[in-house]
């Protein structure tokens, strides 16, 4: 990797002061499970690496009247071990369990999961985030796109968002707290991710000088039943081919409010409002779940090799709904 300056601040203030005004100035290091490999492959070459592992106040899971606050440095293992998370938010548990690598669960953080870069193999092989050739033509469109987007893929971005937790957090209406030079701000998880239009843009609303500090699941989501279902090729560590997170509020056995978010099928975690509408007022049965799955992929436009992901997405939605209906919380 290129030479870089290494900083290990202990306060949020100090950490933010060490970040830059452009992405190449500095990169935030937490678990390192993504950043280190990006740097080793020269995909990113920050001048400074700011290790936030020792920054106070970014760890722990706390519950109060407002909701449940998860520090950005909480690891996947810590998330999985937390009693509140386990009992109240199964969608997060399923998603974290889907990371079937003890090493990554031990090191990888919740914040890192949300901020990790796409796994698009053109991007990782050095062809840029949007994978264009010299003439600006997308390598993905006519290339090897079996793992790429089927939704939100009008271009130029065709990668899929790699986050395991984001669909569940969006379904649980979580808020993300960001802190930067201009102070603190809070964005809804559903508004955190964006589809970049050029190689210089990023996949989320973070500014180069900002850090994701906390994730808050509002108290209003506590009564929801939730689940995540991932379709993976391998049982061992593997990226989902498609995933769906659902959170439903049931009243008299019928869905009063349902939230459905798709993962690994679009450049951002993909909300499915048509499917949510289809679900409203119904009881969750095999057949309603299936028709909600159908509604979730309305508008999907497969690329040359990834039509199969439409079917996988339908199934993921159906199975997530059935799992949520069965669940206790």
């Amino acid at each position, binding site marked *: 990797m290129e030479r870089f300056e290494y900083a290990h601040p202990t306060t949020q203030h100090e950490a933010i002061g060490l970040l830059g005004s452009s992405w190449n100035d500095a990169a935030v290091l937490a678990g390192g499970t993504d950043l280190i490999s990006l740097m080793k492959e020269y995909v990113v070459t920050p001048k400074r690496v700011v290790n936030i592992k020792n920054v106070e106040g970014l760890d722990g899971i706390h519950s109060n009247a407002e909701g449940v606050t998860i520090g950005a440095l909480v690891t996947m293992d810590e998330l999985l071990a937390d009693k509140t998370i386990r009992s109240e938010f199964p969608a997060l548990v399923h998603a974290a369990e889907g990371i079937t690598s003890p090493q990554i669960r031990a090191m990888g953080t919740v914040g890192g999961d949300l901020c990790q870069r796409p796994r698009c193999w053109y991007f990782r092989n050095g062809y840029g985030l949007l994978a264009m050739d010299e003439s600006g033509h997308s390598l993905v469109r006519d290339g090897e796109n079996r793992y790429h987007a089927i939704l939100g893929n009008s271009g130029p971005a065709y990668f899929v968002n790699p986050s395991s937790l984001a669909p569940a957090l969006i379904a649980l209406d979580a808020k993300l707290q960001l802190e930067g030079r201009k102070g603190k701000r809070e964005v809804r998880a559903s508004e955190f991710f964006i589809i970049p239009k050029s190689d210089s843009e990023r996949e989320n609303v973070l500014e180069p000088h900002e850090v994701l500090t906390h994730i808050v699941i509002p108290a209003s989501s506590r009564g929801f039943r939730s689940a995540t279902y991932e379709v993976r090729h391998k049982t061992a560590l593997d990226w989902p081919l498609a995933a769906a997170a659902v959170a439903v509020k049931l009243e008299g056995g019928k869905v009063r409010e349902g939230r459905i978010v798709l993962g690994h099928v679009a450049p951002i975690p993909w909300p499915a409002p048509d499917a949510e509408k289809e679900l409203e007022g119904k009881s969750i049965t095999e057949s309603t779940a299936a028709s909600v799955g159908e509604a979730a992929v309305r508008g999907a436009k497969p690329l040359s090799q990834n039509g*199969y992901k439409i079917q996988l997405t339908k199934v993921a939605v159906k199975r997530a709904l059935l799992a949520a209906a069965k669940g206790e919380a």
Partner: protein
Amino acid sequence: MADYHWPPTDKCNLIGRRIARLDGPWKSSGRIKYSYDMNRPNMLHAKMVFSPYAHAKVVSIDTSAAEKMPGVKAIDIITEPGKEVFWAGHEVAAVAAETEEQARDAARRVQVRYEKLPHLVSDVEPSKAGEHTKQLAEQTDGNPDQALQQAEVTSEGEYGVPVITHCCLETHGQVAEWDGDNLTVYASTQNVSGIPGEFVRAKIADSADKVRVLTPVMGGGFGSKFGADTWGLACARLAKKTGRPVKLMLERDQELMAAGARPSMYAKVKVGAKRDGTLTGWQSESWGTGGPDAQGGAPSIPYVVRIPDRRIRHTTVLTNIGPARAWRAPNHPQMCLITMSALDDLAAKLGMDPVEMLQKNIDMTGQLSKTYSAELEKAAELMDWKKKWHPRGDKTPGSIKRGLGVSIHTWGGRGHDSNCNCVIQPDGSLSASLGSQDLGTGTRTVIGIVTAETMGLPLEAVKVNIGDSKYPADGASGGSTTVGGVSSSTRRAATAALNQLLEKVAPSLNAKPEELEAVDGKIRVIGNPSRAISWKQACAKLGTTPITGVGQRSNDLISSGVGGAQMAEVSVDTETGQVYVDKLVAVQDCGLIIDLKTAESQVYGACIMGITYSLFEHKIMDEQTGRCLNADMEFYKLAGIGDFGEIVVHMMTGSGFDERGVIGLGEPPVISPGAAISNAVANAIGVRVPTLPLTPDKVLGALEKGAVA
């Protein structure tokens, strides 16, 4: 005098038992060093510069910027300007620096100017490959046209296996170290005795006896580690140039791009039979690619089941996909998948149990027909085939469909040239030395067992010396030839050494040497066990001079030609296309088994490797960039421990097998899993998924074309 022929198995103390491998504890405790672990004092690290293009001419190489990078000590040019590179990942240069990181950074600063040339990296059929084709062979036996015309049932299909890699867990590479004009290479190689000469031919070393290759253990080769390779030669040159030891191990992406690919094979097949299942005719049009060269001849299909009337035509597609290298049982898994899938589809068309169809035509398998027949019966029993099997298409409700598949395979496995020195010291210590290597298969343990058995001593009494080219020359470990080679040369050497000892000891026991035997740690008179002296006392009679027994590979101790039968049981999720192998039964013969435990372990490993290439492996190439896109272990998928179910291994032993002598085993059990699993999937979902790997997209695609009946 002791006889070198194998003792009857019921008289053996060690041969044929389940014995744990000698180097297991050394490996698991880290006491023994792989090439990757080898660090020499004052050692430099080298990294490769690879072509980013699939086909290009090197115009110029400017190393000035790289030379100025921190820590850089030397740069070696592998591909001179003016020469061409033929795949992305082709070796261009190597850079040595003080640290691995410095070498890595500096390798990127070597400025290579390329003139890009047209490439083809797609695994396409010949009609779409333009000029990149070479028709290798056409062969006709009998009258296939007539046979197929008169067949009562015919089946047509297209089957295939894509290019995959070896993905050795220990990547290719070595540490090279000079002492004057003597070169030591700590190499991860399958060919300890064969490599030294390569350094002479490359004009790096003066003579082969000045090159010593050391490979105490190695982390997988599978046919891709027979040569010194360009990086080995570059490493030695860099070490010479700098006067320091140099370590150069490939990184994972380089391993997958440059260190070997298994050629693909696809075929359009028409096969015919009588209504009773008797096979009558075969016709196939096959093609495949293994890189820029046309290697080998036409595949020998139909595989194992020799249908008398056949026509086969094969075309090689020349591509820039990477360098083809032998991959565990070269060509056999591909030929097996094509043949056994076609036969399975034909059986399905006849509504016939495919095991019955194989049994019906068992005579066509030739001299191993009785073995195959017995193995199919045994496998069926272990799978509970008769109870579980159903005609194609699992009719039970729900999205999970279950199915069974069968396949049979063959391999040669005659032992290679081998030489062993067996030394008995006056203090009673005992060693066997061979310039062989243990790829992880159990070679070291087998040598120890044969030596100890011959001497009537426990395994711990033997020191096995292998993995060093200073020992007597031995063949490369490829083609399942090692166990036959080393076990027979060791048996001859140990017997020769023992006989010298018996001659020395005979007078003190008042017996002739031919009246003595070595049993239970004693030399004793045959038929009169009380007239005995201990092994230690016997050896003390040697005075100060040790005994050396010399042995060579001995054809009367070994044989070749094995058969195996495998059956797979799978569950397929028809909503997602996910395939899970619930159970794989592998029944295998390999003649006389020296160590049952490491033999079974070979079969387990082959089954796992087989499940992996059946479900996951595929070297994915991008035609636009000419690059391999999954040169990593993220998208070059290998099975994890949770990705396969029960594996049942049964070795055919006893009468009819043991007396054949020793036959190699490394290759055969990896041949059938693809076919058995593909057939099981077809049996489960009612439709053929034509090519491996059986990925969700392909399974769903096949289901869409022909839904479950």
